């Protein structure tokens, strides 16, 4: 399974980079989201994936015992997902707003400061 995930990570990175190299701002945002997913999966995979053993302490236990999934990458990814949502939401609205003002989302045409508009 790890091999499949590794390929998936490569695919996500490649797709993300291809998208952020486009001239359209919308594609740029999609590219960032894909890249973010790729990075999250990378972190997840490097913490060693374990099946069916979530890092939750048994009702009677006082600590995690035996084989369990690593909680640290999970905590990291959780933070990353939430933060990237903040970024995405803001970026989407910003693009919409920018498009309303200057009528384009082509990066090559967004090369003037507001004074030149």
């Amino acid at each position, binding site marked *: 399974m790890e091999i499949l995930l590794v390929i998936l990570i490569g*695919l996500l990175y490649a797709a993300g980079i*291809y998208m952020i190299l*486009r001239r359209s701002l*919308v594609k740029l945002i999609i590219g960032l989201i894909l890249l973010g997913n790729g990075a999250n999966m*990378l972190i997840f995979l490097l913490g060693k994936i374990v099946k069916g053993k979530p890092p939750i302490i048994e009702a009677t236990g*006082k600590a995690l015992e035996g084989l369990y999934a690593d909680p640290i990458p999970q905590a990291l990814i*959780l933070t990353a997902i939430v933060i990237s*949502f903040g970024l995405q939401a803001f970026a989407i*609205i910003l693009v919409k707003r920018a*498009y309303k003002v200057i009528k384009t989302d082509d990066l090559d045409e967004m090369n003037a400061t507001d004074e030149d508009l």
Partner: protein
Amino acid sequence: MLLAVLSGFFVALGLPLIIKVFKGPNTLWVSLFPLSLFIYFISKLPAIKDGETLSSSWAWVPSLGIGLDFYLDGLSLLFTLLITGIGTLVFVYTSSYLKGHIYLDRFYAYLSLFMASMLGLVLADNIITLFIFWELTSISSFFLIGFNNDNEASRKSALTALSITGLGGFFLLTGMVTLGYVAQEYQISALATLSEEIQANALYPLILVMVFVAAFTKSAQFPFHFWLPGAMKAPTPVSTYLHSATMVKAGIYLLARFTPILGNHEWWNGPLIIVGSITMVYAAIHAIFRLDLKAILAYSTISALGILVFLIGLGTDEALLAAGVFILVHALYKATLFLVTGIIDHETGTRDVSKLSGLNKVMLPVGIAAILAAISNAGIPASFGFIGKDLIYEATLHLGNMGYVLTGLAVITNVCLLFAGFLAGIKPFIGPLPPAFSKLHLPPATMWVPPLILASLGMVFGLFPMVVDTALIKPIVSSMTLGTPTFELKIWHGFNIVLLLSLLTIGSGIALYFILKPSEVLFAKATRFEKLSPESAVNQFAKGFVSFSSKWTNFFQNGYLRYYLITILSFLSLLLGYRLFYGVEIYVDTSTLSDITLYEAVIVLIMAAAIFFTVFSKSRLTAVASMGVVGYCFCLIFLFYSAPDLAMTQFSIDTLTVILFVLVLYNLPKYLTLSDTRDRIRDGLLSLIFGALISILTLEVMNETVTKDITSYYAENAYILGKGKNVVNVILVDFRGFDTMVEITVLAIAALGVFSLLKLRLKSIEKE
């Protein structure tokens, strides 16, 4: 001594504040600072006279062998006295010259800074400390030369001076580090004993080149001389201080200081003689065609510096004696002439020598000072300059056949210098007074007393050479030759060839003064080769450099996001690829991998297809929806592999993102393919390569053993310390609770941004 050197820095720091507090019209009291230093150094005179040397040291960076070590011998004493003595007079003079200038406080601070750096330079006993103070003089002189910062020419010449002397600084550092490496010794006073070993080392020529370039740039030797005339844009007190007595002499000091260490070798003497004689003749000839008083003085200063380099190059005891005396002679008369020029400029508003005459009638004391200085400069008997000139001729004549050529050059130089001195010191004061100047009056005493003191000293030392003979000159020579000098300064040497040469010089100089009248025509003739001068070469180089760097910058900083990304990613891919290809053996340990179940494989396939659709879809809706699918599949993978919290978060966030996208979808531009096929292929290749590299990297990293210390800490303590059973939750809200709070803040700010962007009404102009 440490305090004496460093006090200038503290004073420079405090002065602007102090002057602001005591904001009075008179800033004469500031001169007490250099005066006290002068008194301090002159009190050391008896000790130095008896052949003692004083030193003080304070470890600064002992591990690198750098210390604030100071060492006072005859040579340093001469320079400290010039620096503080002329410094005092310049401070006094400035209090009138720049009276009421808004930046007067700053000016004094720069002057103190410069004075302190200069003192540090001539007293430093550690070659690295020497370099540091050397650089400080360059930097502080930059501020002084560019003091009139609203004037473009002034800014430009400050920059030129800084680049040239700064360049020299690099060379000095290289030279000093090499010297320290070769000798394994950083104390200047100790280096002299290692002189033979240093000169036998293969790196000796390198050290020489470095020291030469440093000295030549600082002391304005050909072909680096041009910054000095440019630096005349500075206020006259600066020109007086920096360009007659102190900074330009730093190069001379360096050469003199290193004479016992590096000197007495043909590679040392030859270049110095050649460069020195070229400079002295070239600049002297240039000086006689100038019309601007300060330009005349600038070129004659360069010429005088040439003479000094030349004398140090000769390296005989007589030549070094002549150099020691000439440093003093030159400082005295040149500072006088500069100060006088400042007065003339200040009172008449012109420095054009062809327009000035007869000023004696309105400002006699100034005239007396100027004429005395011109006499000393001319080397007319009974002046200190006469003794200096005699010594130079004696030094050149005693060299055998080559001596005649060099003597000839010295005579030509001196004739031109005499002419230049007369032009600057005598011409403005004699003859008829033009009606335009008849209303002029004598400036305040603080302006004319300093030049008069200097000029009179030039005469006193000339008439009574024994005043300075044993006290000052002998220790200077002994610190350059490391021996006990046996000579006596005499005003009368009897009738001999030296006297004849002196008379010849004076005669032809005066004749020249009557024949050659300064005029625009001559000036134009003399400067028509300017295009070929080193100055234009440097300017061309500077222009070329600027245009090259702007091309370079425009190439890399082109303003296109994708080109930046391409540059960064290509470079990263190259590095990563190189490392993975050559440094890493790729293998996968299949035994540790988990099995692939059918539904997992299906999920992965769906995900891959969704990625594909996201990238290649022509419709926004499809792209956004496929992106959602990618997210949901991701969510399932989290679920399979024991991360229920992540699955929940991913699920809600992904849903929200898609909803947000769809909400604004119709307010978004058309989903067009903007780039052409070639660009797409290029980007596709780059992203595939990068993706593949990341995959390989991941495979390799998976082989690394991970230490689980932190994980087991959380696993054991989540319940005991955090009272929670879901470890991921405990980490987020308890162990790293503060981080989470900041994260919430970030989200809140983003939400505020989103909200305000949505609610913001367009202004009427923006709507159109």
